């Protein structure tokens, strides 16, 4: 009998109460502070939403306005493991919002089919770390569909949403930022929101974009990113970067969560070195906004690019090579990259792995002293 109780009561056990000093060894240092979006992209009413709610809102608008839209993936029916599709099955029925079997290649292949047949497909891959079984469908099929059929067929109505990035304790398989794998694939569009506002606007843009898109959602922002988000339908343009903070000393480029790290770094650089950094949110990885980046690089002459993904072959490499091609004569120092190291994403070592504010700050000093 004692056993029955044991397995039943594990939800609210008191066994550990006899521990003194419950010092949380975890006390994960948050590696960023969220900078809320203060300028809504459109006029009209706004609502305080976090990134999950903003995504849910974009999905809701789509299902409401596009009768052909389907939403599916692992555990999507009950709301998804991050709750992005909460209540949507109830609202739109299980023929439009549904669970799939546990198979990423199936999810994307199915989505390509849905899109090819003319319906809007919004596929969720539960974690970006688990997108690789679908790599073939994405890279060889979705990306090349229009091209290899001579534009007779396309799967532009496919959008893949997937949570990515570090959270403090995700280790190898709940932390990765795979943007550069997809950036290496002509035919795809890849975006990364840094805010609740962008999450909604970018998702709506991707869903309506005529090409297959991947939205990499930094999952640590799901609850942390809270903005006054416009209630109405709107687009955040794909392919356009945003200057989040103006400055003249060093250009700091990032995307997703890293933008918030860089905003804090810019403040630190102001107090410690008395310089004004320009912070650019790239927003869109493929295509990316060469004009905005190079204009800023030419202005400041010093560039730091930071991303969580490893250094070698990371998207920073693409930016750096273009900047040196386009802005060579205006550069005062070599383009610097502060990134995750060339190791798998590690568990307990995460504080040492991240391109955190101190590594960025030290690099700014080097750029200034060059």
């Amino acid at each position, binding site marked *: 009998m004692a056993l029955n109780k044991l397995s039943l009561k594990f939800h609210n056990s008191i066994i550990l109460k006899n521990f003194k000093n419950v010092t949380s060894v975890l006390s994960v240092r948050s590696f960023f502070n969220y900078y809320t979006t203060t300028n809504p992209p459109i006029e009209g009413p706004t609502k305080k939403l976090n990134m999950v709610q903003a995504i849910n809102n974009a999905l809701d608008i789509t299902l409401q306005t596009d009768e052909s839209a389907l939403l599916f993936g692992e555990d999507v029916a009950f709301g998804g493991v991050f709750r992005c599709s909460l209540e949507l099955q109830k609202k739109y029925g299980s023929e439009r919002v549904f669970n799939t079997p546990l198979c990423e290649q199936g999810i994307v292949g199915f989505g390509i089919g849905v899109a090819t047949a003319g319906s809007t497909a919004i596929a969720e891959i539960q974690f970006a770390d688990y997108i690789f079984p679908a790599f073939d469908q994405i890279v060889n099929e979705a990306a090349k569909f229009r091209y290899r059929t001579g534009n007779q067929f396309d799967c532009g109505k496919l959008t893949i949403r997937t949570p990515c990035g570090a959270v403090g304790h995700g*280790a190898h*398989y709940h932390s990765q930022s795979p943007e550069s794998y997809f950036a290496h694939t002509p035919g795809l569009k890849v975006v990364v929101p840094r805010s609740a506002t962008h999450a909604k606007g970018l998702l709506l843009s991707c869903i309506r974009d005529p090409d297959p898109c991947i939205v990499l959602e930094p999952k640590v922002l799901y609850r942390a990113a809270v903005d006054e988000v416009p209630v109405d339908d709107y687009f955040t343009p794909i392919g356009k970067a945003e200057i989040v903070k103006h400055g003249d000393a060093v250009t700091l480029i990032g995307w997703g969560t890293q933008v918030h790290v860089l905003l804090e770094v810019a403040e630190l650089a102001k107090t410690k070195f008395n310089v004004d950094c320009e912070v650019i949110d790239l927003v869109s990885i493929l295509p990316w906004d060469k004009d905005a980046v190079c204009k800023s690089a030419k202005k400041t002459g010093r560039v730091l690019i930071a991303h969580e993904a490893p250094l070698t072959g990371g998207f920073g490499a693409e930016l750096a090579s273009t900047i040196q091609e386009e802005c060579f004569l205006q550069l005062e120092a070599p383009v610097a990259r502060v990134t995750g190291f060339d190791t798998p994403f590690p568990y307990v070592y995460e504080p040492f792995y991240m391109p955190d504010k101190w590594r960025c700050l030290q690099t700014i000093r080097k750029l200034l002293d060059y």
Partner: protein
Amino acid sequence: MFLRQSSLVLRKYLKNTHKLKLFSTSTSTIDYPGAQVIWSGNLSFTNSHSYPPISTYRVLNSKGQITNNSEDPKLSNDVLEKMYKDMVLLNVMDKILYESQRQGRISFYMTNFGEEAAQIGSAAALSIEDLVYGQYREAGVLLWRGFTIADFVNQCYGNVEDKGKGRQMPVHYGSKKLNFVTISSPLTTQMPQAAGAAYALKGKNKVVICYFGEGAASEGDAHAAFNFATTLDCPVIFFCRNNGYAISTPADEQYRGDGIAARGPGYGLNTLRVDGNDVFAVYNATLKAKEFALARNKPVLIEALTYRVSHHSTSDDSSAYRPADEVTHWATHLNPVNRLRLYLEHNSLWNEDKQKEWMKECRKNVLTVFEEGEKKVKPHWNEMFTDVYKDIPDHLKKQMEEMAQHVEQYKDKYPVKNFS
């Protein structure tokens, strides 16, 4: 009715015609290379209604009685006691580690409630030399093999004693010594790997066992594994824990066939389905699978029907997608640990006093070890850079050196005191 009869006749026929007669000229036998053929003038679907459901083997009924004495595995009292004690210890460890996550002391945990018999029964039927590939909900298998509570706790903390060097999330256990290949989160990747390992171990008097969930069975890798194992004659036991759920997704949204077992014959896999909450049934099935795999160099599929009493993990609240009384039903009336306890009590091998004493010992042991594990520091942070390759390549050495300089300069900004 007709369908059933004809399928019986058909199965008998297939049994008798062992080899495909590729070059036969007789009109009654078959010439197509892809499958055996029996001609029919009757156009009808073959589907899951063409056959009765695959039967489920059971030894202990829910009252803890052996229903058919010829199936009694006749285990020694020592083994029986170890089976039961390990199940209880597993429960206690799960409860404490689950709670510790709730208190923010470890970051994540997954419990094994409801699946104790499937784990312990299968582990007990194998020898330590047999190689294990797990999914993640198989802590009982490790416990049976001798993974200590300290081993579990150290891994969950990723401290300096963790054999995995603090690199993976909690519950990603592994032990070279215990022939348990380290758990990896991406589902189903272990299945084709298990087939390959079994192929390489052929003739060495060892089998490989590979655990997986009914959800994981939907991945393409499961198909690859089954097909490789049969076509390449690999002595591997594919052990499916069919616990009814993959996170929130119920089995009927995962597949529409007769469970995972029904796939076996389609691949040419010898298949067993057992009551996964009956430790003796699981034991007998695994033993038979091992004997068969070794004798014939062929794979076996076992489907153990069970129920995930736990939430999926500490990140999950299953009340959002399944009724509480469903869980209660499985946790009480169909509890596999209770079932074994009832059997032991009928046979005077266990009683309330022993129960109290063992529970007390388990709690004390786990709590002590837990506190010790919590105090231990993490490995040196530069272990982050080792083992990416056998030797650290130059580019990584440079990154490590740069980080060392950086940490030296910004000492107060990094949790260096928690690391060796």
